[in-house]
Each structure stands twice: as C-alpha cells, then as structure tokens.
C-alpha cells in the first residue's frame, strides 16, 4: 500500500527534524562568528584558570564577564571538556585565539547545549490540543516544532553570530510547559513575579533564581550585569520605541534648522548615529535616562499584569502576558539588543499554532524581527545563507499557518502584507543598491537606521495588537482549549 505522507510511528518526525537542524548547524561551523565567540572563549579561560572570587574582577580582556553566575558555572563546566580539544584556548592571555579545534569545540558546545531546547520543545508540544487523523504537515505540534527548532533568529544568532540562547530559551520554554501542565496549582502572584523578572533581567532567563552567594561581590556582579553606563541604544538601534524616538528627534532637528527655528550651533553633535556605543543627548526632544526607560517599561506592562491578576485566563492568558512583558521590555528598555526580540517570538509561537489572531500577529512580528536581525550578519559570505534561511522560515510559517487556519479568511490584512512585502525593496536597497552609491562613505549608518526604523514600526504595531487582544479577550477559563 502506498501511503500519502511519511508517517512512521508517532514521534519519529520530531527526531528527524531535530537531527536535520543539527546537521545544518554542523555545516555552519565554518561560518562567520562575531566577537561573541572571543567573549565566550575568554569566559572559558577565566573560569577555568581563576578562582571564583576573581571571576567578576578579571579584566585582561575587554570582554569581561557580564552574565549572571549560573552562566559562569556553565562555562566552568564546559571548560573541563575544552581541555580535550585545545588547551591553548583556556589560557587567559591568548586573546582572539581561534584555532580550528577551538572553533569546533565552541560550535559543538552550542549544538549540544541545544538538546535542552529540543527537550523543552517536545514538552511544549504536549500542551497543544491534538487533532487526530490530521496529515502530518498540518498538525499543530509539527508546525510548532518547526517554528521553534528551525527558528531563523535562533539559528542565526546562536550558530553563526555565536551565543547560547538555545540552551537558555530551552529553560524558559520548559518552565512555560510546566506552567501549562500544572497551572491550577500556581498562584497568580507567582505569574506576575515571573513577568517582572523578565523586565529586570533582559539578558538571562533563569527560573531557578541563580545563586548570588559569591562573597561580597554583589555590587560588582550587578554593575557588570546592568551596564547603565552604556547608551540608550546599542550600536545598531534595536527596532523599538527609542529608534522611533531617535528618528523623530533627528527629523525635528533637521526641520528645525531648515525653518530657522533652531540654531545649528546650539545643537549637540550628532553622535548617536556614529555606530559606537556612547552616551548621547537628544537635540530637540528631551533626553532619556535609564530611570525613564524603566518607568516606561513598567508602565507598559502594568495594564497587562493587572488584567491577568484580575482575570487569569488560564495558560493562554499567562503566555500572552509573558509575551507582552517581553515585548514591553524590548520596546522601552535601556540598551536593548535586537536579539532580545527572540524572547517574545518563541513564546508567541506557542500561541500562534493555537489561534487565528495570534497567528497573524506572529507572522507580522516574526518576519519583521527576523529581518531586523540581518545587520548582525554583515559579511558577503553569509548573505546567501541569511536570505535562504529567512525565506525558508517565512515560507514555512506562512504556508503552514495558512493551512492550519484555512477556514476564516486570510491571516494578514492587505496593509500588513504590503508592509511585509516592503521588506524586499528595503533589503535590496540596503544591501545591494546603497553600497554602490556615493553616500556610502558619508552616511554609512543610513541603511542600518532605515532597517531599524522600518522594523520598529512593525514591532510597535504587533505590540499594540497583542495588547488589544489581551485586554479585549473574554474570560475563557471555563472552556480553555489549552490543557
């Protein structure tokens, strides 16, 4: 008998997908890696060669340890395996050491650490309502698995740029999955506390409250973790509110000078667009301080928290609140890195396979934010890879979600479709046309600024839509679909 689709036993497709993406990651071992590679090598070296008391004080390399202690212990563990690959990478003064064995080890460590992520995804799939008898490619769990395991952002950031987000997000997703499975027991307070945790610790996801027992080092650790001395925006503006704020400020200053409302000599020099991380002042609009951003962030998520407190909506409500908190801290946070958007996209994937409206928001947010990650890979060699992978993920998410929710009309309205299609000319201009023009030398930051502002519009839109859907959804705890 000839079957319609590759349907062996129930779970083998999961392992096929996991193995497939691991093969792809192995092929990318030789790709470009950013300075984050040296950062992690340095941390391997210093955790291996120095006593614990020195970890947060060591400053031979410019890349000082600025992740919480749990991560430092993780690097310490890794360093013991690193000995077998190349002892030289564990020598602290060996700055920028990148022998083939070192590259192989570090890349493999990310690939292997992703096993945590695989496990978490598997657990999340259990939370979904399953439709028996559906063809494999239309199953929500299959779609969710691909959306998470083959997530473009994770692949690009972890396996090319070089980071350990997969491992960390695995822990996050695992906690979400556990929540969904035992929600009846968790009080609402704990839920709100988790949400607040996300705002304060943008860079790490730690359900187990890491051990800050290091003797008298708390101030040093904190100062390393929360570098308020850095500027409002990262070198490349993350597509959040402050990007829009910056561009508005620039526009007003240019218009102001043009219409002679402002004196050009009195304006501070344009330094924020130089691409370096400095503290700077805005020209026309009021300058923003770290405290202001914190206040904005808290204000942005309070309505959501309040709504959840008042009317918990089961697992779906919790997830929605989580996504909003993550997005809120992304939108209004201080020195946000564009990679932080992944914190919102991954949980949103869980919602996307469950409801039509969320699928539409997910498509908008994921395509926009994945595109905003393009500047991370600026080398020519990686250009085809990022385009192919982006198309792969986008086509899959569009086609599969469309098939999943084929009843009830289109997922995206024409305006959204136009906006997303606008990314194509944007990419062509920024990567192909602009470098060939005369302005490349005088205004090298322009493509980055364009990308950042264009994507910020999309992200803001998604944020607003998510908020509206949270505030207007009716209480469905009685007939919640997600068990």
């Amino acid at each position, binding site marked *: 008998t000839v079957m319609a689709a590759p349907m062996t036993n129930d779970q083998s497709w999961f392992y096929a997908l996991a193995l497939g993406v691991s*093969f792809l990651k192995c092929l990318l071992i030789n790709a470009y890696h950013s300075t984050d590679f040296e950062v992690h090598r340095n941390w391997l070296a210093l955790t291996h060669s120095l006593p614990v008391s020195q970890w947060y004080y060591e400053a031979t390399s410019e890349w000082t340890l600025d992740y919480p202690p749990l991560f430092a212990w993780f690097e310490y563990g890794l360093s013991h395996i690193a000995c077998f690959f190349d002892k030289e990478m564990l020598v602290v003064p060996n700055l920028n050491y990148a022998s083939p064995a070192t590259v192989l080890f570090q890349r493999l460590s990310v690939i292997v650490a992703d096993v945590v992520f695989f496990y978490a995804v598997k657990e999340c799939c259990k939370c979904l309502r399953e439709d028996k008898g559906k063809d494999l490619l239309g199953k929500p769990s299959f779609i969710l698995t691909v959306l998470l395991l083959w997530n473009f952002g994770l692949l690009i950031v972890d396996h090319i740029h070089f980071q350990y987000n997969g491992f960390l997000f695995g822990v996050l997703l695992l906690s979400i999955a556990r929540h969904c499975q035992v929600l009846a027991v968790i009080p609402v307070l704990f839920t709100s506390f988790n949400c607040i945790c996300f705002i304060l610790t943008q860079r790490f996801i730690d359900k187990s409250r890491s051990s800050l027992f290091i003797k008298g080092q708390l101030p040093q650790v904190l100062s390393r973790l929360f570098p308020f001395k850095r500027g409002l925006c990262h070198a490349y503006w993350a597509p959040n509110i402050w990007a829009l704020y910056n561009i508005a400020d620039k526009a007003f200053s240019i218009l102001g000078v043009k219409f002679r409302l402002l004196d050009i000599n009195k304006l501070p020099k344009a330094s924020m667009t130089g691409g370096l991380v400095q503290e700077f002042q805005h020209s026309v609009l009021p300058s923003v301080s770290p405290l202001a951003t914190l206040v904005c962030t808290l204000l942005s998520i309070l309505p959501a928290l309040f709504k959840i407190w008042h009317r918990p909506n089961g697992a779906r409500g919790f997830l929605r609140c989580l996504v909003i908190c993550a997005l809120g801290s992304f939108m209004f946070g201080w020195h946000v890195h564009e990679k932080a958007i992944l914190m919102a996209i991954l949980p949103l994937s869980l919602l996307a396979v469950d409801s039509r409206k969320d699928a539409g928001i997910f498509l908008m947010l994921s395509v926009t934010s994945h595109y905003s990650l393009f500047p991370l890979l600026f080398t020519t060699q990686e250009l085809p890879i990022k385009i192919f*992978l982006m198309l792969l993920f986008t086509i899959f998410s569009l086609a599969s979600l469309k098939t999943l929710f084929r009843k009830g009309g289109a997922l995206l309205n024409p305006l959204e479709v136009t906006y997303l299609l606008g990314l194509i000319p944007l990419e062509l201009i920024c990567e192909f046309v602009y470098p060939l023009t005369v302005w490349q030398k005088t205004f090298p930051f322009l493509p980055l600024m364009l990308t950042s502002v264009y994507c910020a519009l999309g992200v803001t839109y998604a944020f607003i839509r998510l908020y509206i859907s949270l505030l207007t959804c009716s209480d469905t705890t009685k007939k919640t679909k997600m068990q």
Partner: protein
Amino acid sequence: MENWSLFSLCVLLGLTSRWAVSFHSYSGAGKPPMFGDYEAQRHWQEVTYNLPVHEWYFNTTNNDLNYWGLDYPPLTAYHSLVCAYVAKLLNPEWVELHASRGYESHSHKLFMRATVLFTDILIYIPAVLLYCFYFCDGFSKQKVATALCILLYPGLILIDYGHFQYNSVSLGLALWGILGLGLGWDLFGSLAFTLALNYKQMELYHSLPFFCYLLGKCIKQGLIGRGFFQLAKISLTVLVTFALCWMPFLSDPKQPLQVLHRLFPFGRGLFEDKVANTWCSLNVLIKIKTLLSRETQLFLSFALTLLFILPSSLKLLSKPNLWQFKLALVNSSLAFFLFSFQVHEKSILLAAFMLPLLVKDGLLLPYVVTSLAFLFLSLYLLSALERSTEEELRLGIYRKLTRHWLPKLNLSRIIKWKFWFSLVAMAALSFTSVWLEPPAKFPDLFPVLVSILSFLHFLGFIIYFNLVQLMEPQRKKSQKKTN
C-alpha cells in the same frame, strides 16, 4: 501545505546546504605550485579571456598546456569566458595573463563559488524540480521527498561546492535531455543532451542510451515515412548544435584534432590515481599497467566496455520506452566507468567513494555531515513509504545510489543485511583513513581499500541493473504514466 511551498522549501534547503559547504576549503587550496581544480577553472578563465580562440587548446608561449591546459569541450571554454568577463569587472587581477597564477583570496573564492551557485540555480535545480514533478509516481508528498533527496545528494554538492567543479551544468543539461525525451520532445531532448556532451565529454557515458532510445523510437515509427523524418530531424538538430559549438574551431583542420587530443588523452595510460574501477582494482593482483602494452590496454578496455554495454543497448533499441531508457543510462555509465580508459573517480559522483579525494581537500567535515544527512534522510523519508521496486530503482537509476533494498521476496532480508554491512564497512574505512596511519609497507593501503570496496559494489550494481533491464517485465504503472 501547497505544492509550491513544499518545493520551494526543498530548493531552499538544497541551496543552503550547498552554500554552507562552500564555506569550506577547495581543491589545492594553498598548495603551490600546481594547486588544484579550483586553480584550473580560474586559469581557464584567464586563458579564454586573454588569448584568441585558436590558441586555447594549443601549447604556445602564452598557454602552457602542462599547467592545467583546457581538457573539456568548447562549451566549458565559453562558460569560462563569460565568467572571465564578470571577473574582469569585479577585479582584473583575477584574470591577469600569467600574473594571476595561483591567485587566492577570500573575495575571489566568493566569486568562484557564486558562479557555481548561479549555474546550479539556472540549469540543474529547475531540471530536478520538473523531473520530480512530472516523472515521479505517487502523491505530491512523495515527489517532494524525492526532490529533497536528489537536491541533498552529497556527491554533487561536495564536488561542485567543495572540491570545485561545474558538474551541475553538464548533469543538469543531461537531465533536461532526459526530461525532453520523457515528455516526447525529442528535438529539445537531443539539443539539451548535445549541449551537455559539448560541456563535458564525460557525458559520453550517457550517449549510447540516448542514441539507442531515439533510434529505436524512430524505427518503431517506421523507417519509411514518419520514422525517417523524425530521424532526419534529430540528426540535423544534433549536427547543427555540434557545428555551432565547434564553429570557431572548424576553420582549420588541425584545430578539432587538437581539441579531441586534449579531450581524450590516450597517452596518459589506463588509469591514474586510485579509481574504483576494474583496472585499478585488478592492478592490485596483476600489474596490468606494466604487463600489457598501451595498445593492448586500449583494446582490452574497449572490448570489455563494449561487451558490457551491448546487451543493454540492444534491449533498449528493441524496446524504446522510458523505463528501459533509464535503466540503460545506469548500465551504460557504470560500464564506461568500470572498464574504460583514463577514468577519474569524479566520474562516478558518489560521495562515499571519493573519501580520499575529499580528505585531501580538507572537506572531511562537510563530507561526514552531508553523507550522514543524506543517508538518514533517504532512509527516513523513503523507507517509510511502501515503495514498489520501480520507485526505488528509478531513483537509484538516475543517481547511482548505494541504497538497494527491494521487496524482492526472500532476497530482501539478505539485501537489507548487506546494506547495513556496506554502511558499516564504509564508516570503518572512513574512520581509519582519517585517524589511523597506514603501515609503512603499504602507504596507499586505505585509498586502495576504498577503491576495491567501491569497485565490488559497482560490479554488483552493474550485474543487478543489467539483469533488471534484460529480464524484468514491464511495470504497468510506468506504462500508464510515462509512455
């Protein structure tokens, strides 16, 4: 999910793996004075751009044939010329006569890799898609699975994007030829195949089946009347295509002779290096290379090749249908590979058996990853389907794969065991070739073992496929769909 999205996902996966493999080393990287195939292709761009046509194949002061002289037919030369024009636009140093020998740089590598990708996208990939769409039996998901397996075939990827060659052009054109014949467009098919032949003389391996199929078809239509006209039209197409390709060389009778002399270097001996064919393997037992004279060697190889081709060609002549055609393609190419003169291991395009070559090129990692991925994928996607003998063979025929389990009653278990045994043997040989030192008495032990193992497989294949072609009754399915 819709067909177009599934097919585009396959294409994107294929393209991503191709480009990811291209990050790795190429043949002869950093190995003066001769370097490797990569330098050969660059050199041909230099020669074709800077020298007039009548000097391309001749040994002159400007063109040293000992340093990677042109030894492919004219179409390769024209292709190199076009690439050279683009190279000149980007960086004239790349094709500077004499001065650019051994030129190696990151941007040049990107350029060369890009040329391979370009022709792949233009010629090979559309042919594969059309082939799977029109000529694969079964539901659309099976077609997509087949397309994915073909696109991820490691041999082609590793040779074209690793070692560096343009096999996708000639194979793609040959595939277009097969497509043409399958759709009943004989003239288009002949044109495409003639172009393939004029690109790489290796396509001669496939020429006899093309010839017999078309001749047989014309005979069937009646040699007096329609058949004769058809034959005349086909012959005219072939002759005109040849004339057009060779036009610059037809002015002087010495030219085509010299070209042929370069294409068929009978002066070079029965075999070079370690090839998985009869002569190399036989040489281990009896030193035929030194025992027999050059003329005897030529005669012997000619006779044996003819012996092995004749049955299959005659069968095709008598029964010119697509099923026979495909089987004849396999048999003919295997026969040529095993018995003809001066065969290079690349002629077989089977990844596992080019191990020594790939290790020499520094392509161990992509070899391991792509072979494992391909093996896993084919086993998973294609064994899960209850395929009939015909499906599997059709795939195996075109790509000469090592999988050959068949539901042939009591033989199937033996075959399955043999398959796993072959895999283990290949894995063991790979491991030992890379990590162990050969004994001093037999420095070439591992490559020779690899060649002999492969040779035994191919011998088994050629016997098997000949048996199938000569004795299997026509399948009803193929009659309905493909005739």
